[in-house]
């Protein structure tokens, strides 16, 4: 099954090269998304998107306290 699939890929060099480039294009997008989402999740507390939300909330809290 897998061998026959690989065999079909290797049958023509054009198909082989097209598969490699198509795979590279798909993979770089996928990898970029995956790494970004991991990094954003890992650094959630330090990111501007989070800080901005807390900043607005914090201001309101301080105003309420005073």
């Amino acid at each position, binding site marked *: 099954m897998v061998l026959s699939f690989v065999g079909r890929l290797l049958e*023509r060099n*054009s*198909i082989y*090269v*097209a598969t*490699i*480039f*198509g795979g*590279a*294009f*798909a993979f*770089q*997008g996928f990898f*970029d*998304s995956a790494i970004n989402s991991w990094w954003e999740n890992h650094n959630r507390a330090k990111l*501007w998107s989070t800080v*901005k939300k807390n900043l607005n909330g914090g201001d309101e809290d301080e105003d309420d306290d005073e």
Partner: protein
Amino acid sequence: MVSYVKGPTYKVLSHFGKLNPELIRSYIPNLTLWGGAALGAAATFTEGWPLFQKTFYQKIPIFGQHWIKDVDPEDVPV
């Protein structure tokens, strides 16, 4: 009565250099596949170009979301 032929009669096909229509037609499937491979290569190496992202890659059905960035306008440096 047997009619003899003196020798084979050759005719010249219409050709451009060494290429004739039949030969070119036989190349079409392979050249199409190579064209696809070339497009794949171009896509791979232009993936980071904003013009290409805007023109082509953002319009890819589901995968295109990867190139669409929603940033709050007030966070964009002028």
